[in-house]
């Protein structure tokens, strides 16, 4: 019980708390819930890039919202990670345009070269693959995002090179 009821203030730096408080202050006092996206983002950044169970609970309690409400948000948006990811998170779009343009073949690259399915991390801890919905880059389909950088018009070859180039 002790670990799970640790308050958020014990889990994050003073600076992170200040930034979360700044977000909370932007909304009416009884609507702290509105700050959940930012709070999760800030919390994740200080926790090896993922949201642990105690951390989500702490965020919920800090914002005075049901824990499940935080969990819903954390599982809806692909930029939140519920497990410690590899050094690089590769978000591969498999929505309609990308699918038509061959994202299936790109998925195959991950399977064959790294043995991973969406949601998994390569054995060397280098790459985590995420399957995501349309990233509004259909013009460059198929595409993926590495970190915060888009890579468009991918082929199996260009993807292979891209992945190999990640440290």
């Amino acid at each position, binding site marked *: 019980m002790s670990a799970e009821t640790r308050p958020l203030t014990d889990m994050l730096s003073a600076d992170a708390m200040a930034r979360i408080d700044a977000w909370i202050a932007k909304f009416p006092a009884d609507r702290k819930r509105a700050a959940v996206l930012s709070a999760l983002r800030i919390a994740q950044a200080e926790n090896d890039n993922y949201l642990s169970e105690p951390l989500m609970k702490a965020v919920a309690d800090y914002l005075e919202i049901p824990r499940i*409400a935080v*969990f819903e948000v954390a599982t809806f948006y692909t930029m939140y990670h519920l497990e410690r990811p590899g050094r690089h998170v590769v978000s591969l779009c498999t929505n309609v345009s990308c699918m038509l343009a061959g994202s299936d073949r790109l998925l195959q690259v991950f399977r064959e070269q790294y043995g991973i399915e969406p949601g998994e991390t390569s054995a060397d801890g280098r790459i985590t693959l995420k399957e995501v*919905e349309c990233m509004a880059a259909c013009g460059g389909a198929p595409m993926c995002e590495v970190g915060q950088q888009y890579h468009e018009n991918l082929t199996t070859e260009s993807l292979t090179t891209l992945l190999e180039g990640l440290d």
Partner: protein
Amino acid sequence: MIDIEIDGKKLKAEQGDMIIEVADAHDIRIPRFCYHKKLSIAANCRMCLVDVENSRKPLPACQTPVADGMVIRTASALARDAQKAVMEFLLINHPLDCPICDQGGECELQDVAMGFGRDVSRFTEGKRVVADKNIGPLIATDMTRCIQCTRCVRFGREIAGIRELGAVGRGEHMKISTFIEQSVDSEVSGNIIDLCPVGALTDKPARFKARAWEMRQTDSVSPHDCIGANLHVHSVRGKVIRVVPQENEAVNEVWLADRDRFSHHGLSGSNRLLAPMLRQDGEWRETDWETGLAAAAEGLRKVVANHGGVELGALASASCTTEEYYLLQKLMRGLGTQNIDHRLRLGDFSQQSHEPLYPELGVDLADLELLESTLLIGADLRKEQPIAALRLRKATRSGRVVSIHDRQVYDNFDLTRDIRIDTGDYLPRLASLASALLDRIRDQDGPLDVRVPDGVDQLLKDYPADDEAASAAEIIATGERKAVIVGLGALEHSSAGHIKRMAGLIARLAGASYGQFSHGGNSAGAWLAGAIPHRGPAGAEVSSNGLDAKTMLTQQQQGLLLLNTEPGKDSAWPEAARQTLEAAEFVVSLTPFADDEAFDYADVILPVGGFTETSGTYVNVNGRWQTFRGAVAPPGQARPAWKVLRVLGNLLELKGFEYVSSEEVLANVQGRLDAEGEKVRPKWQCPEELPTGGRVPDPQNIYAVDHIVRRSAVLQATSDGQDRSAAKRPNLSPFHNIMGLP
């Protein structure tokens, strides 16, 4: 009122009504899954698409408000096509495992698919599978069957107030789940079983026990709290399989507390008493009714003969039927004693002559949700009367609630003021609150008006208003609809009589209604039938007051008759009660259970039926008389308690025990009421001074309130039953992000 037309019928409708509401009111069936009249509108299943003239595409009936002159077709080609298409989509990921699904036969999806589905699926791809989760002992999950209507999620968010379920994940991966490995712990969780239109959430203990069409349905009433929730008892071949709510807007709407729904398992265990038992030479022996009853009658007669009527007493639980109470008091009074009581949890009887005819809430249950300001005194609604908590939660959408309690309670609604006090401080705090109200009246109305009874000034002068009292007074004196309500915690206080009087005064000064909740399912019936030592049936005067429950249990008593109660667990004086019972010369207990504590101290034990096995009447806290029949026969030789009491009366050769049905008994009670009930009209009297200090017994666990609930293994297995429930206030779901709540 506006005019619309649905399927060629010209109808009047209220501006703002949704198409589906108007259709429902006129018995025009529109298929639906996500819509539920008690929940906000989600409009996420699209099953209710209908054809609206001048609209380019079909519109969801649950989310489309009617407009003047609107012409709607629910079964035109366009509507049917849309409905069929939606049905096909919904079935894409549904496993279609009806033969092994408990919902089969009463499944909304099955019904609608019969009407709108295709015979053959065009979908050949793999279906998604969702791993099941154990969410506790009450609800079985089969989440692959879920169609994501979110009714269960909305129930937690809107009705229960404490969200435990959510829609986790996104798009095709979305599933209904709790947070990580949490279970569903709400005291009203079972309602999601009824809400779920498919077999994703089903009654776990009833799983695989029977098909819907095999079950016989009997109307009944819950005996566990003073709400008197209306039930349907479903049974097969003389066995109760499950209990579901019977809709009654004035009582429980469409909801049940888990205690109402799952308590019947307490009656279906192997621990039922099947034959009368007699203690002979220190050994328990099974016997027949004739011998058992004769022994009981003889024992009672002997106590009276040897010690006089004052040494004989009767104690009944607060959940017996009105008929049982009536016969019990008639029996005792016939034997020459007034010692009869059902108030095993109360500690203060000093003010009992000031009590009204029966304990009453002062406001209709249905109107709780309209209250603008409410003062709760010593009430823990969520654990004591869960259905009332749901009502008051609705009131907090715009109304304000002040709670005064001597322990931390976790409501499922927001309190505007949460006043925590020491147990001994109820009276000074209430007096100070009354002073604050008096100050307000003085400030606002100039000279005091008639609302202030004599002696109040004098009484309150030692209890000036402080800031806290002033701010609470401001809340409870504001608004049109106001109520002061005393809960079980305060009623069990050793100065409960004065607490009630002060609460009554506060209500007068605030212009609020005044009332109380009461113990068990039928305290009101007990008062009305005369199962109290100081009044007979219908409030009739008695020659002299008998002994109250506390006196009987804490001082010596030679003979005791127990009806459906184990005083060592039910009373506020467990140790003293056991000692008294063990020391008594003769104890007879009427109980359904073979593991009743009476086996430790009684001389005769007679097997009786539980609430699903007897006919009877409960009177709820609004004075609503609710009569029900037995759904199944009691097991073995057990008999309904009213019959046992009647025969005892015959054996003791008492007058007026010739009833052949419980209806006759009831008619007898009601006849008395018509004749004299009006006579009891207590006036509020100002106490001369307020006692100080005081104590309360340990509160009862929600699943330990009576002998049946205590034996429901599934309820005992819940986190509430295990006393593992939240140690801190849960974060409540706010209302401001909920649109379209009815």
